[in-house]
Protein backbone atom coordinates (compact mmCIF):
# COMPACT_ATOMS: atom_id res chain seq x y z
CA UNK A 1 0.00 0.00 0.00
CA UNK A 2 1.50 3.31 -1.08
CA UNK A 3 1.01 6.11 1.51
CA UNK A 4 -0.96 9.16 0.42
CA UNK A 5 2.01 11.45 1.02
CA UNK A 6 3.69 9.89 -2.02
CA UNK A 7 0.76 10.92 -4.20
CA UNK A 8 0.80 14.45 -2.75
CA UNK A 9 4.54 14.74 -3.44
CA UNK A 10 4.02 13.51 -7.01
CA UNK A 11 1.26 16.05 -7.53
CA UNK A 12 3.55 18.82 -6.25
CA UNK A 13 6.21 17.79 -8.79
CA UNK A 14 3.62 17.79 -11.61
CA UNK A 15 2.35 21.21 -10.54
CA UNK A 16 5.83 22.71 -10.62
CA UNK A 17 6.45 21.27 -14.09
CA UNK A 18 3.20 22.87 -15.24
CA UNK A 19 4.21 26.25 -13.79
CA UNK A 20 7.59 26.12 -15.52
CA UNK A 21 5.84 25.18 -18.76
CA UNK A 22 3.58 28.22 -18.54
CA UNK A 23 6.59 30.44 -17.88
CA UNK A 24 8.97 29.24 -20.59
CA UNK A 25 6.72 28.54 -23.57
CA UNK A 26 5.49 31.09 -26.10
CA UNK A 27 2.80 29.10 -27.91
CA UNK A 28 -0.59 29.71 -26.24
CA UNK A 29 -1.68 26.14 -27.03
CA UNK A 30 1.26 24.65 -25.13
CA UNK A 31 0.71 27.10 -22.27
CA UNK A 32 -2.89 25.90 -22.16
CA UNK A 33 -1.77 22.26 -21.98
CA UNK A 34 0.57 23.16 -19.11
CA UNK A 35 -2.41 24.70 -17.29
CA UNK A 36 -4.24 21.38 -17.77
CA UNK A 37 -1.21 19.71 -16.22
CA UNK A 38 -1.51 21.92 -13.14
CA UNK A 39 -5.25 21.24 -12.83
CA UNK A 40 -4.51 17.53 -12.98
CA UNK A 41 -1.87 17.81 -10.29
CA UNK A 42 -4.36 19.60 -8.03
CA UNK A 43 -6.93 16.87 -8.70
CA UNK A 44 -4.43 14.18 -7.74
CA UNK A 45 -3.69 15.99 -4.47
CA UNK A 46 -7.42 16.36 -3.74
CA UNK A 47 -8.05 12.64 -4.19
CA UNK A 48 -5.07 11.83 -1.98
CA UNK A 49 -6.28 14.19 0.77
CA UNK A 50 -9.79 12.70 0.62
CA UNK A 51 -8.32 9.21 0.87
CA UNK A 52 -6.23 10.25 3.85
CA UNK A 53 -9.28 11.55 5.70
CA UNK A 54 -11.37 8.54 4.77
CA UNK A 55 -14.13 10.38 2.90
CA UNK A 56 -15.27 10.68 -0.69
CA UNK A 57 -15.45 14.48 -0.47
CA UNK A 58 -12.20 14.93 -2.33
CA UNK A 59 -13.49 12.84 -5.20
CA UNK A 60 -16.70 14.90 -5.38
CA UNK A 61 -14.61 18.06 -5.56
CA UNK A 62 -12.47 16.59 -8.34
CA UNK A 63 -15.64 15.88 -10.30
CA UNK A 64 -16.50 19.59 -10.25
CA UNK A 65 -12.95 20.54 -11.19
CA UNK A 66 -13.21 18.24 -14.22
CA UNK A 67 -16.45 19.93 -15.33
CA UNK A 68 -14.93 23.38 -15.00
CA UNK A 69 -11.80 22.23 -16.85
CA UNK A 70 -13.87 20.89 -19.73
CA UNK A 71 -15.75 24.19 -20.07
CA UNK A 72 -12.51 26.14 -19.71
CA UNK A 73 -10.74 24.19 -22.45
CA UNK A 74 -13.62 24.67 -24.90
CA UNK A 75 -13.85 28.43 -24.33
CA UNK A 76 -10.07 28.92 -24.20
CA UNK A 77 -9.45 27.07 -27.46
CA UNK A 78 -12.24 29.07 -29.12
CA UNK A 79 -10.55 32.29 -28.00
CA UNK A 80 -7.14 31.10 -29.30
CA UNK A 81 -8.67 30.13 -32.66
CA UNK A 82 -10.38 33.49 -33.05
CA UNK A 83 -7.15 35.34 -32.11
CA UNK A 84 -5.32 33.32 -34.77
CA UNK A 85 -7.96 34.22 -37.34
CA UNK A 86 -7.53 37.89 -36.52
CA UNK A 87 -3.70 38.10 -36.47
CA UNK A 88 -2.44 35.00 -38.36
CA UNK A 89 0.35 34.62 -35.78
CA UNK A 90 0.39 32.67 -32.56
CA UNK A 91 2.70 33.98 -29.86
CA UNK A 92 1.72 35.27 -26.45
CA UNK A 93 4.41 37.97 -26.54
CA UNK A 94 2.61 39.77 -29.35
CA UNK A 95 -0.75 39.81 -27.59
CA UNK A 96 -0.15 42.98 -25.62
CA UNK A 97 -3.29 44.78 -26.77
CA UNK A 98 -4.83 44.92 -23.30
CA UNK A 99 -1.61 45.80 -21.49
CA UNK A 100 -1.05 49.43 -20.54
Amino acid at each position, binding site marked *: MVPESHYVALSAVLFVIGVV*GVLIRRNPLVIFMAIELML*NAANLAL*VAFGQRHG*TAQGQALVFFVMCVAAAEV*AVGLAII*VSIFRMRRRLSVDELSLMRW
Partner: protein
Amino acid sequence: MGSVIAFWILAALVVGSAVGLVVRRNPIHGALFLVVNLGGVAALYLMMHAEFLAAAQVIVYAGAIAVLFVFAIMVLIPGREETGPDPLRAQRWLAVPLGGFLALEIALVLRSTVFTTPRRPATVAGGVEAVGRLLFTDYLFPFEVTSFLLLAALIGVMALTKRKA
Protein backbone atom coordinates in the same frame (compact mmCIF):
# COMPACT_ATOMS: atom_id res chain seq x y z
CA MET B 1 4.98 -4.59 -2.74
CA GLY B 2 3.44 -4.84 -6.19
CA SER B 3 1.52 -1.63 -5.70
CA VAL B 4 4.71 0.20 -4.70
CA ILE B 5 6.45 -0.89 -7.91
CA ALA B 6 3.38 0.10 -9.93
CA PHE B 7 3.33 3.49 -8.25
CA TRP B 8 6.96 4.22 -9.11
CA ILE B 9 6.52 3.11 -12.72
CA LEU B 10 3.44 5.31 -13.07
CA ALA B 11 5.16 8.22 -11.35
CA ALA B 12 8.10 8.01 -13.77
CA LEU B 13 5.68 7.83 -16.72
CA VAL B 14 3.64 10.81 -15.53
CA VAL B 15 6.62 13.02 -14.70
CA GLY B 16 8.43 12.05 -17.90
CA SER B 17 5.45 12.86 -20.10
CA ALA B 18 4.94 16.17 -18.29
CA VAL B 19 8.56 17.13 -18.93
CA GLY B 20 8.16 16.06 -22.56
CA LEU B 21 5.10 18.28 -22.92
CA VAL B 22 7.02 21.29 -21.66
CA VAL B 23 10.25 20.62 -23.56
CA ARG B 24 9.16 19.51 -27.03
CA ARG B 25 8.77 22.30 -29.59
CA ASN B 26 6.08 20.69 -31.69
CA PRO B 27 2.64 21.21 -30.07
CA ILE B 28 1.27 17.95 -31.53
CA HIS B 29 3.95 16.02 -29.61
CA GLY B 30 2.89 18.02 -26.57
CA ALA B 31 -0.73 16.94 -27.06
CA LEU B 32 0.31 13.25 -27.30
CA PHE B 33 2.44 13.62 -24.16
CA LEU B 34 -0.60 15.16 -22.48
CA VAL B 35 -2.65 12.06 -23.33
CA VAL B 36 0.02 9.81 -21.78
CA ASN B 37 0.11 12.02 -18.69
CA LEU B 38 -3.69 12.00 -18.26
CA GLY B 39 -3.80 8.23 -18.71
CA GLY B 40 -1.10 7.80 -16.08
CA VAL B 41 -3.03 9.98 -13.64
CA ALA B 42 -6.15 7.89 -14.34
CA ALA B 43 -4.18 4.77 -13.38
CA LEU B 44 -3.06 6.53 -10.17
CA TYR B 45 -6.73 7.24 -9.38
CA LEU B 46 -7.42 3.52 -9.81
CA MET B 47 -4.61 2.74 -7.37
CA MET B 48 -6.29 5.06 -4.84
CA HIS B 49 -9.61 3.19 -5.34
CA ALA B 50 -11.25 6.17 -7.07
CA GLU B 51 -12.75 4.09 -9.88
CA PHE B 52 -15.36 6.64 -10.94
CA LEU B 53 -12.76 9.36 -11.30
CA ALA B 54 -10.47 7.08 -13.30
CA ALA B 55 -13.27 6.42 -15.79
CA ALA B 56 -14.25 10.10 -15.91
CA GLN B 57 -10.60 11.06 -16.41
CA VAL B 58 -10.23 8.76 -19.40
CA ILE B 59 -13.52 9.87 -20.96
CA VAL B 60 -13.39 13.62 -20.27
CA TYR B 61 -9.67 14.39 -20.31
CA ALA B 62 -7.95 11.78 -22.43
CA GLY B 63 -11.00 11.53 -24.69
CA ALA B 64 -12.72 14.86 -25.16
CA ILE B 65 -10.13 17.42 -24.10
CA ALA B 66 -7.19 15.78 -25.87
CA VAL B 67 -9.22 15.50 -29.09
CA LEU B 68 -10.13 19.20 -28.77
CA PHE B 69 -6.46 20.09 -28.44
CA VAL B 70 -5.48 18.02 -31.48
CA PHE B 71 -8.27 19.61 -33.52
CA ALA B 72 -7.18 23.09 -32.47
CA ILE B 73 -3.56 22.32 -33.41
CA MET B 74 -4.66 21.02 -36.80
CA VAL B 75 -6.76 24.14 -37.44
CA LEU B 76 -3.97 26.49 -36.39
CA ILE B 77 -1.23 24.98 -38.63
CA PRO B 78 1.61 24.82 -36.11
CA GLY B 79 5.36 24.65 -36.70
CA ARG B 80 6.22 28.28 -37.39
CA GLU B 81 5.68 29.75 -33.93
CA GLU B 82 8.48 29.89 -31.35
CA THR B 83 11.10 30.16 -34.11
CA GLY B 84 11.78 33.90 -34.31
CA PRO B 85 13.98 35.87 -31.91
CA ASP B 86 12.83 35.71 -28.34
CA PRO B 87 12.25 39.20 -26.89
CA LEU B 88 12.07 37.91 -23.33
CA ARG B 89 14.97 35.43 -23.33
CA ALA B 90 16.48 36.56 -20.03
CA GLN B 91 13.14 36.35 -18.25
CA ARG B 92 12.53 32.89 -19.62
CA TRP B 93 15.80 31.56 -18.22
CA LEU B 94 14.72 32.97 -14.89
CA ALA B 95 11.69 30.63 -14.99
CA VAL B 96 13.65 27.46 -14.18
CA PRO B 97 15.24 28.68 -10.89
CA LEU B 98 11.90 30.22 -9.94
CA GLY B 99 10.25 26.85 -10.54
CA GLY B 100 12.85 25.22 -8.29
CA PHE B 101 12.11 27.85 -5.67
CA LEU B 102 8.37 27.06 -5.89
CA ALA B 103 9.12 23.36 -5.50
CA LEU B 104 11.18 24.07 -2.39
CA GLU B 105 8.38 26.19 -0.97
CA ILE B 106 5.73 23.51 -1.58
CA ALA B 107 8.03 20.89 -0.04
CA LEU B 108 8.47 23.00 3.11
CA VAL B 109 4.71 23.56 3.46
CA LEU B 110 3.99 19.87 2.94
CA ARG B 111 6.61 18.85 5.47
CA SER B 112 5.24 21.16 8.13
CA THR B 113 1.52 20.41 7.70
CA VAL B 114 0.35 17.54 5.54
CA PHE B 115 2.93 14.91 6.35
CA THR B 116 2.68 15.46 10.11
CA THR B 117 -1.11 15.35 10.61
CA PRO B 118 -2.19 11.91 11.80
CA ARG B 119 -3.82 9.65 9.28
CA ARG B 120 -7.48 8.93 9.89
CA PRO B 121 -8.64 5.42 9.10
CA ALA B 122 -11.01 5.08 6.18
CA THR B 123 -14.55 5.03 7.53
CA VAL B 124 -16.39 5.43 4.22
CA ALA B 125 -15.66 3.33 1.19
CA GLY B 126 -14.44 5.63 -1.58
CA GLY B 127 -16.20 3.76 -4.36
CA VAL B 128 -18.67 4.93 -6.98
CA GLU B 129 -21.57 4.63 -4.57
CA ALA B 130 -20.09 7.01 -1.98
CA VAL B 131 -19.25 9.63 -4.63
CA GLY B 132 -22.71 9.41 -6.19
CA ARG B 133 -24.39 9.69 -2.82
CA LEU B 134 -22.37 12.83 -2.03
CA LEU B 135 -23.04 14.39 -5.44
CA PHE B 136 -26.79 13.94 -5.14
CA THR B 137 -27.16 14.95 -1.48
CA ASP B 138 -24.60 17.39 -0.07
CA TYR B 139 -23.44 18.69 -3.44
CA LEU B 140 -26.76 18.69 -5.26
CA PHE B 141 -26.87 22.45 -5.87
CA PRO B 142 -23.30 22.72 -7.25
CA PHE B 143 -24.06 19.68 -9.37
CA GLU B 144 -27.04 21.44 -10.96
CA VAL B 145 -25.03 24.65 -11.40
CA THR B 146 -22.45 22.57 -13.31
CA SER B 147 -25.04 21.85 -16.00
CA PHE B 148 -25.61 25.58 -16.40
CA LEU B 149 -21.86 26.17 -16.65
CA LEU B 150 -21.51 23.58 -19.41
CA LEU B 151 -24.45 25.10 -21.29
CA ALA B 152 -22.91 28.58 -21.02
CA ALA B 153 -19.58 27.23 -22.34
CA LEU B 154 -21.37 25.54 -25.25
CA ILE B 155 -23.19 28.70 -26.30
CA GLY B 156 -20.14 30.87 -25.68
CA VAL B 157 -17.92 28.74 -27.92
CA MET B 158 -20.46 28.86 -30.73
CA ALA B 159 -20.74 32.64 -30.42
CA LEU B 160 -16.95 33.05 -30.36
CA THR B 161 -16.08 30.91 -33.37
CA LYS B 162 -18.99 31.72 -35.67
CA ARG B 163 -17.78 33.28 -38.90
CA LYS B 164 -19.56 36.40 -40.05
CA ALA B 165 -21.53 35.47 -43.15
